[in-house]
């Protein structure tokens, strides 16, 4: 049964979610929470992809969601490994305390 929800609603929702993610990345210091905010942004884009795919009847959008998920999984593995290495070397996960390379 097709819904009566216009596509615009999904797009507005994903814009709001994306911006929530952006704000998280900008305001937080904890590397893990920044990582989670990045995931929020990726998922907002995924939502756009899936809604376009459903409203246009084109499967390409859902395919892209898969590839984004795979990339997100890879990013999670590497990113968290970096956070672990960082914590081991500097005993911190706060990005503003990692300033050795800062001029």
């Amino acid at each position, binding site marked *: 049964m097709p819904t009566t929800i216009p596509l615009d609603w999904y797009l507005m929702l994903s814009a709001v979610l994306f911006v929530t993610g*952006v704000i998280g990345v900008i305001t937080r210091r904890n590397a893990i929470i920044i990582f989670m905010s990045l995931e*929020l942004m990726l998922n907002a884009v995924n939502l756009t992809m899936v809604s376009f795919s459903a409203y246009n009847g084109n499967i390409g959008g859902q395919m892209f969601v898969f590839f984004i998920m795979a990339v997100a999984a890879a990013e999670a593995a590497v990113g968290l490994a970096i956070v672990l290495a960082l914590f081991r070397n500097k005993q911190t996960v706060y990005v503003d305390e990692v300033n050795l390379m800062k001029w």
Partner: protein
Amino acid sequence: MDMHVLLFALFAVGAVASAVLTVTRRNPVASAMSLVAHFFMLSGLYLTLEAQFVAAVQVLVYAGAIMVLVVFVVMLLNLGNEHRLQERSSLRSVMGTLIAALFAVQVIITLLAHPTGMNAMSPQALTIGTTESIGQTLFTTYLFPFEAVSLLLLAALIGSVILAKRHVK
């Protein structure tokens, strides 16, 4: 009220609320659990879009694998200390927040002024979200990206093992 609209409203409000909780909680575990709730809400939204396979994979991959990893790392590092998480508000973050919010407002205003005109889902939407059609497309049209992604995952696997190892000789 239509059932679909009701479900959309429920999941949309839930998604926004859990997203806001994710970026505002001081405790990383609270953030992570809100994000898990957010993924469940998104999965519900995908179901309202008839993308059943994506909805299942969303929970399986994000909530079941990625976030478990995050929670695992948070617990391993024992980051629960509340007082060390006091965040300073600076000009940079205030400006950033404002500009980001402006972007959302802009998108919403544009969409309100010029609606896309797509008021109902395509009739094919019911069939393209199933496991069969996804599998068929994934292993025919998108075979090359699929293989490329498998290589990427392998590289990430090796990279993360080396990064997380204590002594690399």
